[in-house]
């Protein structure tokens, strides 16, 4: 699905002291499975995820997604791919504060049909948010409930790839494992990339990629 070649990301390009977030490596990712990208803070793992998901453009190298070279396409094409094919779970949930849980999921949906609404409710129910929580705004939901709503938002369009950046960072242990169980279940026929520095949540990962100082230091496969 993803073919990454010689990818580099340099911050502060204009200064003498260039900062390499990614230092020219190759990577191939499959069509499905739960892939963990692990590494300490500042290692470049989030940058890699952002480059794969078109949110960032690498300084050098290519990122090929299903035969499409993501680094050369237009902004509009990138937006289309993000909207149609990718789903995002960020470190913070970024739910829209004035919308209820259901509307927060639907805001990312491809349409607002009754069928989509039904699917959104099913998603949220499957993630443990009951009928009462659907009409609550983020301020009235717990951190775990918010993150689960954010996961439902990421999955509402049945994306081919879900990018999850520290999805459990703001959750307690129990909620963290619940979230990971959901992502694992979704990865049965889709690709889920989880960026984290917490190895314990990647117990069920199909593959773990360890990044250190912008380079892949270890590739583990279960």
């Amino acid at each position, binding site marked *: 699905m993803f073919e990454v070649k010689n990818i580099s990301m340099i911050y502060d390009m204009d200064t003498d002291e260039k900062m390499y977030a990614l230092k020219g490596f190759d990577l191939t990712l499959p069509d499905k499975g739960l892939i963990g990208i692990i590494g300490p803070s500042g290692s470049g793992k989030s940058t890699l995820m952002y480059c794969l998901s078109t949110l960032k453009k690498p300084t050098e190298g290519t990122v090929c997604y299903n035969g499409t070279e993501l680094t050369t396409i237009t902004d509009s094409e990138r*937006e289309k791919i993000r909207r*149609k094919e990718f789903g995002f779970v*960020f470190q913070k949930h*970024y739910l829209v504060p*004035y919308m209820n849980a259901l509307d927060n999921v639907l*805001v990312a949906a*491809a349409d*607002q049909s009754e069928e989509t609404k039904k699917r959104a409710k099913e998603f949220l129910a499957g993630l443990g948010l009951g009928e009462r929580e659907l009409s609550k705004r983020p301020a009235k939901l717990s951190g775990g409930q918010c993150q689960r709503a954010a996961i439902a938002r990421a999955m509402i369009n049945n994306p081919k790839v879900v990018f999850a*950046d520290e999805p459990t960072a703001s959750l307690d242990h129990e909620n963290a494992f619940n979230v990971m169980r959901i992502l694992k279940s979704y990865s049965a026929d889709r690709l889920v990339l989880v960026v984290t520095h917490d190895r314990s949540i990647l117990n069920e990962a199909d593959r773990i990629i360890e990044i250190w100082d912008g380079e892949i230091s270890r590739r583990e496969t279960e």
Partner: protein
Amino acid sequence: MKSNLSAWKYVKNNRKNVTTMVVGLALSFAAIYIVHMLLMTSVESFKPLALTQPKKMCFFALSRSTLDQAAVPGAEDGTAEEKRDALVKLLEQTDGIDSVIRTQIIRTDYRAVIGTLSMKFPLYEAKDIPAFLRHVDAKLTDGRMPEEDGEILVDEVILKNMNAKIGDWYLPDWYGEVFKIVGTIKSEGMYCVGTPKGFVNNGWYNTVLCDGEHSDLESLLAQYGIKLGAEDEIDDAVTNRTFYQRDCVELIENVVKAISAIVMFFLGVTMLIAYVSFLRNRVNEYCLYTSIGYSRFEVYGMMMREMLLIFVSGLVAGILTAIPVCLIFRLTIIDPRGMICRLLYPDKMLQTAGLMLFILGIIQIPLLLCIRGIKTIDRLED
């Protein structure tokens, strides 16, 4: 893929913020409209007196020196009195002029919200008054016709403005005698008429009863060799129209424009400050939208639709506030004081709506800056 960024969701879920903005817009609109309507009451009230009345009744008073120098046909070498009589005859022979009669006049002040208009009305012999009323299309609506000296008929609206009633005595400014109000009349031009005290047909004024097409006395007098000087007085359709347009309509419109500009300036500044804070509070939301694949154009579209919804609601609420308030003013202040007003000024509504759209245009500046500055969430998390 269809955009699901609905403007309605923000409006529906942020009633407090939205209501504040809608109320602000509505009150600004209503304030401008109500002030406009009140000030325009002067324009509307003076209109029958300044534009309609002189079409059928004009006055002129010529000084002795003007008549001395005038070459009135048929009385070129006559005295001033002979020239005046010859001029009256010539005028009466003119098509469209029914009569030119030397009359005394009395004046009354007609007060509007802003300004006072001093109006003249003629004093005829009692027997001539029915003909006068026929000429000006006035009907006696209450009371009786003047029969004795010093009795007057007053237009219904003027009577209200004078805060008087039938049977009251009226003391004109400089006549030196009181007149009794014996009846009310109703006409388009708000005429008044009465009988003099003691002397008839000996006034310095000439009252010209004419039709609408022959109410330009200055031109008519010029045709008969009269060159007007500073001491002469002409009160005809042209002088009244000029006064009305320059000293009434333009003046009041300029005042209204100045008030509108001040209100709109403060509204614009307030809206700009409120909107910048509104945008700042929603940066994360906009970043989320672009991150999950919405284009900046779609986000801009949503923001514009929200603003339009707020502006249109403000406008509608403003109209719905302004009209009843204007109606209350009309029923409690304007009508009882014999003033005339209009409730609906579609042109002013459009103009104010246009000014609000201009403010919406100014708001595009922070909006576009915000759109340009929208980042994806990766930048927020960096």
